[in-house]
């Protein structure tokens, strides 16, 4: 029995570990370092209808246990992703989750319609929470009615299940999650980055050319855990959790909070081998925790009547 195998809408994952969108490009750089077939899935870089150059540099700034980024959805556009990136990824035995972004509802619908036809795209991740584009993105992720309408429109055209990526830059994330579930989403991914800023004390100017950026890394992990803990109790669709994961222990914490799979983001920049390392370490950790199958961990922090976790250590 594969103790790490996870079944989610559209996704038969050999393990629940996948690189998060925007932290892995289209896999080419990491494919030079290890076999991408080891991964549970790959969330490819956000794809828009037209090619985008993105923001000016500096695009990243380090923060305490984290980093700010304001890349601005740089990507070659859906046509090139379909003709070059996705066919190239077919050489690997790994399902692709395509991150779909746009500035208008029509953009999202068109990209979703086209990209969901690719044979190796097994699910979509609707990016309604990018904090780094001027129009759209986060606006779709902060108003529940707007997010629900977009979810419905994309569901109508998508050939594969649709996961919606939630923004933490919102007062009531449970309300948002419920609205999206009701609109027909197959799953949720959470959390996207938190809007932050750094100022250079030498010249009093913002460090990022975009002024603000999305905060990621271990610094945001407690926020992700809290939000997944709340949302997973309020909805019945599965959650792919993300936000500062660096280790097998972090993965279990996300499962206990309510995640059914996880994505690793910023940690790929710190250690490009982090995903295969976590996958390798998980079985030993499950042994230590007395857990037979990783799915047993989902929601353990709030499920009632469950035996408390035995720690063999």
């Amino acid at each position: 029995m594969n103790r790490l195998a996870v079944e989610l809408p559209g996704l038969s994952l050999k393990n629940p570990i996948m690189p998060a969108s925007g932290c892995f490009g289209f896999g080419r750089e990491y494919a030079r370092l290890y076999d991408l077939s080891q991964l549970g899935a790959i969330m490819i870089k956000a794809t828009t209808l037209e090619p985008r150059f993105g923001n000016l540099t500096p695009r990243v700034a380090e923060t305490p246990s984290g980093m700010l980024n304001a890349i601005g959805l740089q990507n070659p556009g859906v046509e090139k992703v379909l003709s070059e990136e996705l066919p190239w990824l077919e050489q690997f035995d790994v399902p692709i989750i395509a991150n779909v972004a746009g500035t208008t509802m029509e953009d999202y619908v068109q990209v979703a319609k086209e990209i969901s036809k690719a044979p190796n795209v097994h699910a979509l991740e609707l990016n309604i929470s990018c904090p780094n584009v001027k129009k759209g993105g986060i606006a779709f992720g902060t108003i529940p009615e707007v997010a629900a309408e977009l979810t419905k429109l994309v569901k109508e055209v998508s050939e594969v299940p649709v996961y919606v990526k939630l923004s933490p830059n919102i007062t009531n994330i449970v309300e948002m999650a419920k609205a999206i579930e009701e609109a027909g989403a197959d799953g949720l991914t959470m959390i996207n980055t938190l809007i932050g800023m750094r100022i250079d004390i030498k010249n009093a100017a913002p460090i990022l050319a975009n002024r603000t950026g999305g905060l990621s890394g271990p610094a945001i992990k407690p926020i992700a855990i809290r939000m997944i803990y709340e949302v997973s109790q309020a909805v019945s669709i599965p959650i792919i959790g993300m936000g500062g994961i660096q280790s097998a222990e972090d993965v279990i914490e996300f499962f206990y909070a309510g995640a059914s799979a996880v994505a690793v983001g910023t940690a790929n920049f710190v250690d490009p081998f982090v995903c295969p390392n976590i996958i390798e370490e998980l079985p030993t950790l499950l042994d230590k925790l007395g857990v037979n199958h990783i799915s047993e961990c989902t929601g353990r922090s709030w499920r009632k009547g469950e035996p408390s976790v035995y720690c063999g250590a």
Partner: protein
Amino acid sequence: MIRKEQMSIVAHERIANNIYRIVLTGGLVSEMNTPGQFVHIKIEAQAEPLLRRPISICEINQERKQFTMIYRKEGIGTSILAEKMPGEMLDILGPLGNGFPLEAVEKGQTALLVGGGIGVPPLYELSKQLVKKGVYVVHVLGFQHKDVVFLENEFAKLGETYVATVDGSYGIKGFVTDVIAAHSLSFDVLYSCGPKPMLRALEQVFPNKNVYLSLEERMGCGIGACFACVCRVPNSDTAYRKVCSDGPVFKAGEVIL
């Protein structure tokens, strides 16, 4: 091939004001051969500071399985690095990027190597390899002030070497371009590494020459995945090059400085 390895510090010393030389040893050195490449260093095992620090390779010694870096202590990361002692280990990812093309210059020809500040170190391995190839090398090194001048003697052993300081406190007063003009330095190929204004000036002074420039940029991953260090390409709204993986060395005119 890019590898990640725990490498041991062999030597570590301050060589000028806030400028340090560190020598590391390990099997990873066997992957290093092109001058102008860099490594990405995780300075502490914990999440703080989180990101790696890109630092250029200054000298490679295959026999001893050692390589040298020269860096400026400036922020949190390099301040912690500066405290590391010989015997301690460092998490190194590398070698990264594409270095200077040696094949651009032939035996008997002249290469002009122009470095500015902390852009000087990668030119040292380049100069050594060019000399070995039989190329005549001329060095022009620019620094802010006499307190931060380094590697002058090492370069002088390899070829003609001029040093300039912005404030005139050492060597020739002025910028590297002033030195090149004052001495009417001629060359077949120019290799440079340093701050962008300096690279821009060189590109403007020698529009029809064979010029290679090594860029510095804030980086995330260092391997081309995060799109933090992109620069624009002339005559296109969407075309780009990544400094970390397409560079850091570019032919003059290939990217917009």
